[in-house]
């Protein structure tokens, strides 16, 4: 079921009301940015890509099916923008770039203070970057953003069974990486 507020804002956007689209951006900016940040591991790139994803969403707003929820549709656009960016990055990447990747935090931390929480988040962010793209995508969408497999399937164009396999492998790898780095809840 689509959120009635989203449906109303999309209808207003379609009538040329740019401020209504601004309300949608305000509502979803943190989620879209958070997804891209966890996928790319780079806050500046995530910000730029979030902007690009929202502009893409605006230019394609006529293709949005108002009988379906807006959030998965928006995330599918962000996912496509992210896939394009990662493809470009793979083309441009060099061995030097790979060696500058942040290592997984190597100090045992427990999230009791703000500093520890920041360390924990950095540890998770670094570990996520060690997963392959498909594993990272499904882990982030499923366990951080709470999407169901059928929603993720329509977003990324992969069968649910394949997604579950990626999730299973991704969870095992991530748990091992976090354990090795001493990052635990």
């Amino acid at each position: 079921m689509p959120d009635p507020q989203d449906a109303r804002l999309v209808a207003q956007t379609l009538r040329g009301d740019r401020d209504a689209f601004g309300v949608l951006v305000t509502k979803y900016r943190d989620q879209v940015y958070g997804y891209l940040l966890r996928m790319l591991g780079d806050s500046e790139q995530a910000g730029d890509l979030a902007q690009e994803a929202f502009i893409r969403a605006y230019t394609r707003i006529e293709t949005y099916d108002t009988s379906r929820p807006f959030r998965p549709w928006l995330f599918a656009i962000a996912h496509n923008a992210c896939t394009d960016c990662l493809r470009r990055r793979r083309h441009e990447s060099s061995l030097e770039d790979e060696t500058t990747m942040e290592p997984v935090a190597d100090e045992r931390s427990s999230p009791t203070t703000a500093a520890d929480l920041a360390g924990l988040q950095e540890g998770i962010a670094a570990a996520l970057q060690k997963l392959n793209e498909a594993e990272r995508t499904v882990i982030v969408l499923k366990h951080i953003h709470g999407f169901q497999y059928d929603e993720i399937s329509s977003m990324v164009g992969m069968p649910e069974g394949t997604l579950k396999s990626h999730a299973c492998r991704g969870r095992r790898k991530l748990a091992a990486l976090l354990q090795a780095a001493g990052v635990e809840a």
Partner: protein
Amino acid sequence: MSMSCEQVARAIDPYLDGELDETLSADLMAHLHRCPECSESYLPQVKTVDLLQSLPAAEAPVDLVANVLQGLPEPPGAGEPAHIVWGAFGLGVAGALATVAVLWLIGLLSHGLPGTALLEWAALKTVLGVVGALSSGVVKALLYGLALNAGLLLLIGLGYLAWRRRPIPSPAMMAI
């Protein structure tokens, strides 16, 4: 009911995917806390998923909304009042119709020179122009009008040249 290690191995992924019911989930967790081998194998995954789900939301840059709104393209026809769009469209159509009329007149005056064929072609272009203008904004409407009239003026010129080169009928033929 107590779960066996084999049952836990089969149920762990559905549990982590949130697809196991409450009773089975409770049995599975009870087994994990009781069985050192299963605990070592699966508890880190459970903790990892708990960690991921408890992460605080990331905060987007403060200027993201402003930057998005600034970067939005103009929707087709947006910002132009409807009367301007329709006015431009009307001018294009009127110009095209006037040209067709002139062309037809030239064809008529030139005793059956390629006026009929030109008229048919011009009518087709007019229809295409109207359809195009209807489906577009003011700029496209003007462009259609200009392109249409430029094409028709070219045809007028060609028609006029053809008419000038036609064989001059003799007085005898005129009499027939």
